């Protein structure tokens, strides 16, 4: 019975560990998108500022 519990726990743990890792990847991707958005916002603001000064 112990080996049965160990075997099913290993499968469950392995799948959960992989899903947790994929969840971390998902968060990293979201952070990269947020960083890209912030960078674009800063660039657009700088461009608007330059255009405003030129006008």
């Amino acid at each position, binding site marked *: 019975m112990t*080996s*049965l519990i160990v*075997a*099913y726990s*290993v499968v469950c743990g392995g799948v959960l560990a992989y899903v947790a890792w994929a969840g971390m*990847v998902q968060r990293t*991707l979201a952070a990269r998108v947020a960083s*890209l958005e912030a960078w*674009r916002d800063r*660039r657009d603001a700088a461009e608007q500022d330059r255009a405003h000064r030129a006008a």
Partner: protein
Amino acid sequence: MNGLATSRITSAAPMNLVTILTLPVAMLLGSAISLIFAVAPREVTMGDAQRIMYVHVAVAWCGLASVLASGVAGIAYLKGRSLASDGWAQAFTEIGWLCCVLTLITGSIWAHEAWNTWWTWEPRLTSMLILAAICSGNLLLRGSFEDPHQRARIGAIVALLAILDVPLIVLATRIFRGIHPVHPSMSTTMRAVLVASVVGFAALFLLITEWRRRQIMLGNSITDMENREYNC
């Protein structure tokens, strides 16, 4: 901002699809596990430990199918040079690796109960270990290349190498006569529960594969955008 808007949509989409499919897959897998413990008959010789077989065989078949699928996706990449095919190839390779490792561990526990040894250099075990090593090598090689097309090319070649090991694993018991049973005798109920287990685990691994594939594709899109934005 159009490119970024697209990335927002694609990053939201996989979570929606996964969220929609999570409950049905969980129910399917839950039903399969219930059948294993409640319906499958208790085997006379091994007792309850024999129930390891239902998860061991299911995970092993899912692993072999994933390796085959990654090889097919690899061939599709080599023909079309599309990173969409490589997304499938990488996701299936990862799942194949996970399933191979889980198969080896559960098989080892089974072997200890059935044959009184944790490991033996038996043909099927050895060829499965080789497959796990090839999958590990594939993932390590993929991680060492920055260029997505170079990564996809080497991944496809190693995936094709992995495919060659699959028939060896399947036919190992017939060709080499190891200690794995060639035609295991099972009652109709046991067979039905095994099929349910395979279906449940296949659904789970397909769901995770789809999630990872979309993540990989999104990662490629973000890298493209970063290269365009930060270097212009």
